[in-house]
């Protein structure tokens, strides 16, 4: 087909799409777990447990003033672990879980991953630091979209990975490019102190030896639950960012 005809056919496409592309701005989103609670509550169907005072029930050894501040070798990084005055809501989610063989992903799964995460699968896999192994991958399919609109069909909302390292560290990580990933537990903490890693602000919580954080790096939302040392966690996050 002649170039002029291609140009003409494309040139006449609907104005609504031209307007959409002209006005498009990548979404900016909030990056704290406490704030995510409200958004997550829209997406989940029912909260089945009352708020639990975790600092007393799950982590009784934590002292009242137990918000640590560590400064890393790079002066600009600030690591603060919030352990006190936490509460957690556990939720049932109306989701379907699909499992994938991480070593044999179909083009369809890769396309879907890229659509939701905003990054090609190969680019993403390259970000997992050396020494860490992604053992399992699955997707949460939800009928709710990131705007809280309910659809008839379930479709992938976010992608999740079980990751381990040789020293026995374990990470459960969810990623999504359009919204914070869905959570089946919501941490609340008043007066939490933020950390900053490679310029990215995030809130890190520790409950029962597991670190929890949500942050956005390169336009992707990461939701991490990690049983690692804090230095391992910091290095892992830096690799993602």
């Amino acid at each position: 087909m002649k170039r002029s005809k291609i140009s003409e056919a494309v040139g006449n496409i609907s104005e609504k799409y031209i307007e959409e592309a002209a006005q498009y701005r990548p979404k900016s989103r909030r990056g704290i777990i406490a704030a995510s609670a409200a958004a997550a509550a829209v997406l989940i169907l029912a909260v089945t447990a009352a708020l639990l005072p975790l600092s007393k029930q799950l982590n009784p050894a934590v002292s009242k003033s137990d918000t640590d501040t560590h400064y890393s070798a790079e002066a600009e990084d600030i690591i603060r672990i919030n352990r006190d005055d936490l509460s957690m809501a556990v939720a049932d989610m109306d989701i379907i879980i699909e499992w994938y063989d991480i070593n044999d992903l179909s083009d369809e799964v890769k396309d879907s991953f890229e659509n939701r995460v905003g990054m090609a699968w190969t680019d993403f896999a390259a970000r997992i630091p050396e020494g860490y192994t992604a053992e399992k991958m699955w997707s949460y399919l939800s009928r709710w979209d990131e705007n809280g609109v309910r659809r008839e069909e379930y479709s992938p909302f976010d992608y999740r990975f079980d990751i381990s390292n040789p020293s026995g560290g374990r990470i459960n990580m969810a990623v999504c490019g359009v919204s914070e990933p869905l959570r089946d537990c919501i941490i609340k903490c008043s007066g939490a102190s933020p950390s900053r890693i490679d310029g990215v602000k995030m809130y890190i919580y520790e409950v029962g030896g597991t670190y929890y954080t949500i942050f956005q790096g390169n336009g992707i939302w990461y939701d991490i639950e990690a049983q690692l040392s804090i230095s391992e966690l910091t290095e892992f996050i830096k690799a993602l960012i």
Partner: protein
Amino acid sequence: MTEVEDNMIISLFFERSEEAIERLDEKYGALCMSISRNILKSEEDAKECVNDAYLGVWNTVPPQNPNPLTAYVCRIVRNISTARYHKNTAQRRNSFYDAALDELAECMPSPDFKGVSELTSALNCFLGTLSRENRVIFIRRYWFGDSIDAVTDKMKLTANTVYVRLSRIRRRLCEHLRKEGFSL
């Protein structure tokens, strides 16, 4: 200065105030220039086309009362710029627009195909099946003629991601057009 609302600009055109062109240029000048520059790869030609487009808006508003104004102005700029591009093609090529058209040619109907309006309808239908982000990537590349770098910048994605996505969108477009009965 605060950006003027579209309806204020249109009111100025209706009043036949010369300030209308100033405000239009203030708000949309950069966007119009980028569209025209992408197609023509010539600052001088692009400026002329954008000025011609402003004149086009002046001559058509009123009676037209475009809503949205962005798409209306952009389309006039694009039409004038592509007309200039086709006129110049024999002497001068190598714009971003050439590269974009070459990519798209892979999944377009055979050379003897004449039904441009049918193809536009199929494209509209296809665009409706894409995610918003993929649709914007497609439009920025093939309608606005943005370079890959410009799309990358606009979408806050990596260049590789944009390449891969465009490639997959084109592949899906081929499948869509075949299903719609086009001979590729």
